[in-house]
């Protein structure tokens, strides 16, 4: 029953770790009427204390590193991190730059990568659905992506 409730009500906190706002807009599009993430109980909350899933966008800049770690530590367990966008996954076009840390996974553990620059809102939504599937069955569904 606890797992059921966790799968049915993922609350997101959105953290911009130095991105260009492209991915942020696409995340908001995934919540908009066309894809309506509220169907799956998704809700955007303001405080990290209420959240379950942390959505990071952007390569972590040097200044942002402390904020990312602090926000991650403030989320109560169990918590998950989803990275949206190519920059957050590996550094993207900012790879090997002197000011970025080449992706979120150098700072905090990451559960899911959604590549794309920016990813389509369908991909963001699909990523969250995959994470919920992994939560309920313990295994990530092995899809080739032909339905998209």
């Amino acid at each position, binding site marked *: 029953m606890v797992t059921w409730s966790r799968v049915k009500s993922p609350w997101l906190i959105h953290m911009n770790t130095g991105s260009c706002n492209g991915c942020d807009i696409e995340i908001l599009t995934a919540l908009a*009427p*066309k*894809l*309506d993430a509220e*169907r799956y109980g998704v809700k955007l909350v303001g405080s990290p204390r209420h959240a379950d899933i942390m959505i990071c966008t952007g390569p972590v800049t040097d200044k942002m590193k402390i904020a990312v770690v602090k926000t991650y530590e403030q989320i109560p367990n169990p918590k998950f991190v989803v990275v949206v966008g*190519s920059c957050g*996954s*590996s*550094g*993207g*076009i900012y*790879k*090997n730059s002197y000011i970025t840390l080449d992706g979120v*996974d150098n700072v905090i553990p990451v*559960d*899911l*990568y*959604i*590549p*794309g*620059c920016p*990813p*389509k809102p*369908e*991909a963001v*939504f*699909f*990523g969250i*659905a*995959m994470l919920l599937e*992994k939560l309920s069955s313990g295994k*990530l569904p092995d*899809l*080739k*992506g*032909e*339905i*998209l």
Partner: protein
Amino acid sequence: MKIFIELIKNFFTKPVTVDFPITSKGLNKPERLRGRHYLDNDICTGCKRCYRVCPSFVIEMIEITENMRHLHKNMKKKFTPVINLDGCIFCGACEDVCPTDALNLTNNIVVPSDNREKLKVK
């Protein structure tokens, strides 16, 4: 006052929401959407042009070893590209520059994954 009329009109119309992970019918998918890469190993000559042109340096050229030969029949080919999708910005430069049309961008979206090793096109 106008907004109340609009909202009540909305209340009685059908929602625009698409039941997405179950069906993708009704979603807007452009014909020329630049999505996941497709690499045809038989046509590829390993010329490294895509490797040189890539603006975000995500294409690696790996040397073809003996146990990879069953994938690459062309004996003249020394190198093969590996595209790390986790840093790709899907600009299409590699597709444009490819002399033999071996590298193509399909219009399928990249499937999210929990492992960066799975986000590679070989």
